[in-house]
């Protein structure tokens, strides 16, 4: 009898089956798989990696003459690492809360003859990797080029970034467990979303302080000129390869990893396996023409989507500091506001279009209904465009008080940008669950980059028209070419 060869993809390779490494690899492989093939993914990652690569090389060259431990910037590096920790906690918090609730796949693993602690450790390692990866991708080129230019010890940097991710995950787990015990799972999730919105908005506002509060910003920067007292300077020293603090940070990360494994088991066991408690809902009425029935349904579903509300909240919070600037002498002008409004309106329309088109819960029900497909599409587009256009309209009112032309131009340009982004979502749609809203860009990096470029083109045309410049049609032409390309190469589902 001849043994049947295992398919190449399923061979465990050097990793023992069901080992911790094997489980982590399985988790990462599932998370990394998107809609595009391996080639598309490599192109997308390559393009995304290009900026940090160039930026990292330039920055490393710029500081090539700095001492191994540059005391003058130790305060600033410490502040940056504190911000990094906060951002990572926010990111880990969202993943940790999902950990207990997305149980289907986890329960399959927990029913396998593998120690539960190993399964949970693998899952936590997955969260730590997801939290660390974007920051590692951003910073790795800088540390690598710095080593090439003579700062060999700075190669400790990526290890410290990874260690901070491990510590952030542990803090998030402790917080999530405490919050779930205090507030219950549903409220804890809402609290996490709210915290994410506030943290994101605060970071954005902080990034804008050099523009609208330069004096305050300068004062804070001067305060950071002095070296922080030990052990507050240890993370920064560890990042720069100082052996003692580096060992301390790594030891702390190891302890955090241990705590994570212990808390994760409790957290996952405590998460409810069944649905949330039932609450009566005020009934909505769907009536009138099929268009208004469809439109009403989409608006109702959008309004009842907490993920979406969180996303909209985040975008609104991002706009608050910008709005505050319009009446100041800062550098954000009505023209820039109009440009930003076009981009944000288009981005919001794209998010909503993804929800109403790709994340339609019952596509076969709609297809089987006696309503022409065009009418369904028009209702869905109207639902995707209405909320962002209301938002842009409110923004236009504010802009109009300073520059009426900018306000008048912003409205049609935002509508065009939103429509183009929605059409792009339509042409590249792939069925998905509404719960995958946060992961929609992960499934196709090429689509995400295309959308970014498309919205950039519309925003660019707005800016150039308001300058004014004869080059204004150029970005619009580029957007047209991009749309044409996407239409031509769109996936055609077999009916």
């Amino acid at each position, binding site marked *: 009898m001849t043994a049947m060869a295992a398919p190449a993809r399923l061979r465990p390779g050097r990793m023992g089956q069901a080992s911790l490494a094997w489980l982590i690899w399985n988790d990462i492989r599932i998370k990394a798989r998107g809609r595009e093939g391996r080639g598309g993914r490599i192109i997308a990652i390559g393009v995304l990696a290009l900026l940090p690569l160039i930026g990292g090389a330039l920055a490393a060259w710029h500081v090539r003459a700095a001492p191994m431990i540059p005391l003058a910037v130790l305060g600033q590096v410490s502040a940056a690492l504190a911000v990094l920790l906060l951002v990572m906690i926010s990111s880990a918090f969202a993943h940790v809360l999902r950990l207990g609730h997305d149980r289907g796949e986890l329960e399959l693993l927990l029913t396998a003859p593998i120690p539960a602690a190993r399964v949970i450790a693998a899952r936590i390692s997955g969260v730590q990797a997801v939290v660390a990866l974007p920051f590692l991708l951003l910073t790795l080129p800088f540390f690598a080029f710095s080593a090439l230019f003579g700062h060999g010890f700075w190669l400790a940097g990526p290890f410290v970034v990874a260690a901070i991710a491990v510590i952030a995950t542990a803090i998030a787990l402790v917080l999530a467990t405490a919050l779930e015990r205090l507030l219950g799972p549903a409220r804890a999730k809402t609290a996490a979303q709210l915290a994410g919105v506030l943290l994101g908005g605060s970071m954005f506002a902080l990034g804008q302080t050099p523009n609208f509060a330069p004096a305050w910003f300068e004062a804070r920067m001067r305060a950071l000129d002095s070296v922080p007292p030990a052990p507050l300077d240890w993370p920064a020293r560890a990042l720069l390869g100082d052996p003692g603090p580096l060992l301390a940070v790594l030891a702390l990360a190891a302890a955090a990893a241990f705590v994570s494994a212990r808390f994760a088991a409790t957290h996952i066991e405590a998460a409810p396996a069944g649905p949330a408690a039932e609450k009566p809902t005020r009934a*909505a009425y769907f009536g009138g023409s*099929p268009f208004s029935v469809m439109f009403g349904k989409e608006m109702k579903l959008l309004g009842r989507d907490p993920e979406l509300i969180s996303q909209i909240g985040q975008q609104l919070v991002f706009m608050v500091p910008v709005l505050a600037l319009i009446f100041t002498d800062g550098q954000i002008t009505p023209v820039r506001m109009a440009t930003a409004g076009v981009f944000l309106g288009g981005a919001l329309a794209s998010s909503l279009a993804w929800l109403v088109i790709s994340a339609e819960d019952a596509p076969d029900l709609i297809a089987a209904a006696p309503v022409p497909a065009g009418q369904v599409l028009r209702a869905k587009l109207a639902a995707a465009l209405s909320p962002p256009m209301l938002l842009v309209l409110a923004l236009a009112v504010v802009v109009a008080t300073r520059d009426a032309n900018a306000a008048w131009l912003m409205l049609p340009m935002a509508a065009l940008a939103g429509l183009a982004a929605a059409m792009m979502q339509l042409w590249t749609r792939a069925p998905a669950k509404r719960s995958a809203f946060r992961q929609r860009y992960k499934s196709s990096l090429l689509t995400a980059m295309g959308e970014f470029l498309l919205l950039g083109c519309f925003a660019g045309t707005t800016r150039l028209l308001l300058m004014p410049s004869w080059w204004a049609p150029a970005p619009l032409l580029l957007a047209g070419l991009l749309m044409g390309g996407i239409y031509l190469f769109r996936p055609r589902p077999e009916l």
Partner: protein
Amino acid sequence: MHAPNPLCLPALQIRGLTKAFGGHPAVDGLDLTVPAGQIYALLGHNGAGKTTTLRMVTGLARPDAGQISLFGIDVLAEPIAAKQITAWLPDEPLLYDKLTPAEYLAFIAGLWRVPPADAQPRAAALLQQLGLWDKRDIRCEGFSRGMKQKLALAGALIHEPRLLILDEPLTGLDAAAARLVKDLLLARVAAGATVIMTTHILEVAERMAQRIGIIRSGRLVAEGSMAELAVGRAAGTTLEDVFLELAAA
């Protein structure tokens, strides 16, 4: 020459229906006629072409060749008119988790243009019949599989279709709910509707269906009442015996 009497038209008539996926035929020149006012069970192994056939009948998939008519309406030429008299209930319930049962039924009624004055009492009656009345204002996201299946059935019935097409309608239902659904379907047929259903539960087909079709590799290999299918076979032959002999041959 007289126009055909719509009351005498078959509920479903399929001629030479063909559909292939990636070069592999899923439905291969299928001919099928389902008389009106009956329950018709379409049986076959997994991958035999049952669901693909029903998806083409409901306009969800486009045939490569062939003709489909529902009560004389050409499905390919007049899809909206055909959909107006049809309901499709797949094995996975088509629901919106964020809507309540009352809202869901109002939405379906709106799509099929049922006047609210008719839709509201119908929705109330269906929710009561299916034991969902107490849950009418609760969002569906917490519902069990059986409750979702019952609500989807209510959605299929709210516009009183002449033809109900059901793919595995009893999946996920407990014994009491399955009985409820079967009684509801029989009542609809008694009121003049036609039901076409697929099922892997052969006892259900044997007890409920007036006619049974067995499909294999996209072709109809046998059709008739249970008595007709048993002709030429040993006494006491069950549908399971016939099915295993024909579907796997």
